[in-house]
């Protein structure tokens, strides 16, 4: 059987049609607050169990416990505060409120806790820096001064242009069971696949029953690949190079925090909830700039003997002219002059100039899939 959900059970906080209709008929009775797109996505993730065992946004005790100990108050490993911030509360603890995105009611929340928090402490503990140039830090600095904690119930989902590819933990678990997979390795990505990715994924797949490629879709930085490009590129790779009975492609909506090591553990927990038993942790996983050392995200896993998902640390791959194939530093004895490393920046430049990258960097079919878009990059 696949991984046990984090905290023991898959959380489901989606209201039945009948209850939803009743609440939507009484919206005027509830205080309302607005949430942005990324927060609305977090609400969906809570409601569908991607963040199990969370049933809502963190209350103060859990928030402080996550900051200080990287665990919830019940000792469950949890590294990223899942919080809801507001500027000023005009409701009280004990109230039920509605969370809106634009003019759509997204969820009902039972407010258990309203508290102030120290933003500098937050960023220092989560991002290990106070530098306002860090994208996660700047976001925290712009947040409201209060946090509200409590359970949520999903009323409506956001429009999802990639619904066909979006599977929830319950669905992947049934899928893995149907495929007869007992061990599954998950790979998280926000990039189009190059040969280095393929090497790492297939190296991992060698030791388990199934490979779960789980790209994160959501707000991105300028210059990142667009969501639809990532999907199409992976579809091409799957069509021509992956065994159909041993690999699955499904997406999850999620906004990167760029919290490096802490976020690597968070990503592993999410995939555990999807049913994965193993998780590939990349070099500088969830990093940005030079805020984290290249393998810091590997070391943090030593602190969680009870995580319930096995991290797989595979060094980055490169092409070795002497070996005559894709290898990594652990298995190649040749010097740097024989190694051709895959540079994401160089790939981007080649793709934007319409130049086919060499075959030891990117599959021709993947390149063609990317090139079918007039502009594959986020403006």
């Amino acid at each position, binding site marked *: *059987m696949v991984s*046990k*959900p984090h905290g*023991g*059970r*898959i959380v489901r906080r989606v209201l039945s049609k009948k209850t939803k209709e009743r609440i939507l008929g009484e919206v005027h009775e509830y205080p309302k607050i607005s949430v942005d797109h990324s927060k609305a996505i977090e609400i969906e993730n809570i409601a569908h169990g991607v963040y199990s065992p969370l049933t809502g946004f963190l209350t103060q005790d859990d928030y402080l416990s996550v900051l200080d100990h990287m665990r919830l108050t019940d*000792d469950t490993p949890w590294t990223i505060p899942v919080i809801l911030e507001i500027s000023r509360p005009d409701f009280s603890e004990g109230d039920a409120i509605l969370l809106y995105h634009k003019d759509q009611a997204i969820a009902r929340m039972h407010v258990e806790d309203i508290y102030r928090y120290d933003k500098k402490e937050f960023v220092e503990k989560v991002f290990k820096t106070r530098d306002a140039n860090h994208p996660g830090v700047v976001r925290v600095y712009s947040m409201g001064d209060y946090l509200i904690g409590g359970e949520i119930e999903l009323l409506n989902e956001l429009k999802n242009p990639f619904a*066909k590819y979006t*599977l929830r933990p*319950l*669905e992947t*678990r*049934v*899928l893995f*069971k*149907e495929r007869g997979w007992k061990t599954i390795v998950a790979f998280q990505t926000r990039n189009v696949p190059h040969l280095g990715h393929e090497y790492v994924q297939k190296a991992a797949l060698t030791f388990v029953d199934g490979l779960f490629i789980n790209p994160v879709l959501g707000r991105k930085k300028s210059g990142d690949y667009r969501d639809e490009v990532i999907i199409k590129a992976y579809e091409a790779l799957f069509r021509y190079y992956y065994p159909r009975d041993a690999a*699955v492609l*499904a997406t999850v909506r999620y906004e990167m925090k760029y919290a490096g090591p802490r976020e690597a553990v968070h990503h592993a927990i999410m995939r555990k909830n999807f049913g994965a038993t193993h998780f590939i942790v990349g070099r500088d996983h969830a990093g940005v700039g030079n805020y984290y050392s290249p393998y810091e995200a590997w070391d943090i896993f*030593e602190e969680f*003997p*009870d*995580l*319930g998902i096995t991290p797989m640390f595979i060094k980055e791959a490169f092409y070795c002219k002497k070996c005559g194939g894709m290898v990594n530093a652990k298995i190649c004895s040749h010097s740097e002059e024989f190694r051709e490393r895959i540079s994401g920046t160089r790939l981007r430049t080649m793709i934007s100039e319409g130049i086919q990258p060499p075959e030891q960097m990117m599959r021709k079919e993947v390149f063609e899939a990317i090139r079918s878009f007039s502009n594959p990059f986020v403006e």
Partner: protein
Amino acid sequence: MGDEKESKYTTVSIPKPLYEKIKARIEGTGFTSVSDYVTYVLREVLASLEEEEKEEVFSKEEEEKVKERLRALGYLD
């Protein structure tokens, strides 16, 4: 603040020779105290025990519904 911190921990007794053995074992490792080490080991043991108690997280009815959607999306034949 100090009291608040203390309330998150409790004391467990272990035999002194065992304490000394652990103390010697953790020298030069990343563990800074016997308590840290014991916490680590207990978490590991409990997690592996829980792992053995796996049970299905969905009902038969839910499973059939999900399968229908997976077929419609092309994930299942």
